[in-house]
């Protein structure tokens, strides 16, 4: 769910565009240096971008009965970092606006700040915090995804509250009202998305662990440990 075209006053559209632009510029610089090092990255990033677009267009089962869309940025944050994710996120958001009529051009800045910058930044912080600890890699993936998703909606509510502060209580009351509406679908969604992406990681570890090693997402030992635990679980299932 993005802020749609025309919902924000023009002053706020400019402010959020100005906030988003430095991240996109840094992302482009990082992308260029990454491609100079290894030109194989462009097709891989392109295909991953398409994957994120499809993921964000898929309907996930939601506890509240309504179906919601995942943001898909958690996986990209873990794999490529914040700045590259912000570029991919910006392109995905533009395509969503032009191909699916979700979001818009004037609100693209605000949507970039929430979905392509804020969420990934929070997710990346959690990932760095948990990466070198003994925490299971699936729990790390779950936490990163769920936090990135939740922060995206916290920022969206904040953007709406800043643009339309309440008459009594100001920005904070407005923020509480908008977030309460989002929370009904977004908190269950964040948990479901976290579970789904943790399971996605399980399949990657089982079938193609070299992707995770190539991108240096987790160390070889951590992946080996995760594979070993799964191996023992699988063999105990066979025995029982």
């Amino acid at each position, binding site marked *: 769910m993005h802020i749609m075209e025309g919902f924000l006053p023009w002053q706020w559209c400019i402010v959020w565009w100005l906030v988003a632009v430095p991240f996109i510029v840094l992302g482009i610089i990082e992308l260029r240096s990454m491609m100079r090092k290894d030109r194989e990255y462009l097709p891989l990033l392109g295909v991953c971008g*398409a994957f994120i677009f499809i993921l964000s267009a898929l309907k996930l089962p939601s506890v509240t009965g309504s179906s919601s869309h995942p943001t898909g940025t958690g996986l990209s944050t873990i794999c490529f970092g914040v700045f590259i994710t912000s570029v991919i996120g910006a392109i995905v958001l533009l395509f969503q606006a032009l191909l699916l009529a979700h979001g818009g051009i004037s609100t693209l800045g605000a949507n970039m700040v929430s979905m392509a910058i804020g969420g990934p930044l929070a997710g990346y912080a959690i990932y760095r915090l948990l990466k070198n600890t003994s925490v299971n890699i699936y729990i790390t993936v779950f936490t990163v995804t769920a936090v990135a998703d939740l922060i995206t909606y916290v920022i969206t509510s904040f953007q709406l509250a800043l643009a339309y502060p309440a008459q009594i209580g100001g920005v904070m009351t407005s923020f509480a009202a908008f977030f309460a509406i989002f929370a009904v679908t977004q908190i269950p969604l964040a948990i479901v998305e976290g579970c789904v992406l943790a399971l996605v990681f399980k399949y990657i570890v089982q079938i193609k662990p070299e992707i995770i090693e190539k991108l240096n997402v987790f160390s070889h030992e951590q992946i080996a440990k995760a594979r070993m635990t799964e191996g023992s679980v699988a063999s105990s299932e066979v025995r029982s």
Partner: protein
Amino acid sequence: MLENLVDNIAQESAFRHINPATKLILCLGSLVICLVSPSPVVPLISGVVLSIVLIVPARVSPVLYGELLLGPAIFTIISVVVLVFLVGGGDVLWQFNPVPWVNLTITVGSLHEGLLVLCRVFGCSVSLFFIALTTPMTDLFDGMKRIGIPIEIIDLMMIIYRYIFIVYNQAVEIWHAQVMRLGYSRPMEAIRSSAMLCGMLFISSWNAGEDLIHAMDCRCYNGIIPSLEQAEPMQMRSLIPVLLYLAGLSGILLVVITRVVVLS
């Protein structure tokens, strides 16, 4: 989802052959005018006029167009209702205190603000639909190159755009296979199936990316994907009506702004 992809409609639009820059001028021009308007009148006029243009001369199916408008409409109406209760100003029209600490009030100012946002979303969304429903993405890539967007970004966008359809077809095939095997019958089963779908999609996308590199290498890929521009040159026949329309809309905006200034 992608069944009613806007791009498919754009491919068949009667305005497809018009130079993309002309259409972009109309889209961005009316978008900016609708956005800065302090009155709901300007976006309402712009939205209605562009909708008629899209349905009649551009031959966009009215049913599909209606469905497209309905998407943002639901979110907008919920948000506008919240907005009407939150913001204030002016005389109180309606007040409701279900419990002592909750005070729901609608004022003249909040109603005006709600109406303005509703019309602005309508006007701006129709401006966006105008470019989306008449110009396929491939034409927009040429335009982006001309305005100086880095070539790496455009190449990345082209790859993403191409692979959206390939990944999507794969996702639909897996999804059908899962549904046939009752993969979404229970909530836990649905989560497991969704994860399996996404996991397999990611791995097969990655493999497709690796195959793409090899295919591009065979065609002497050196970091840039060259492409031919197919757009028609800008024609006065289409540019003059666009400029006249934007001038008219700006005129109405000026009248509205002077009236607002005089009244205040």
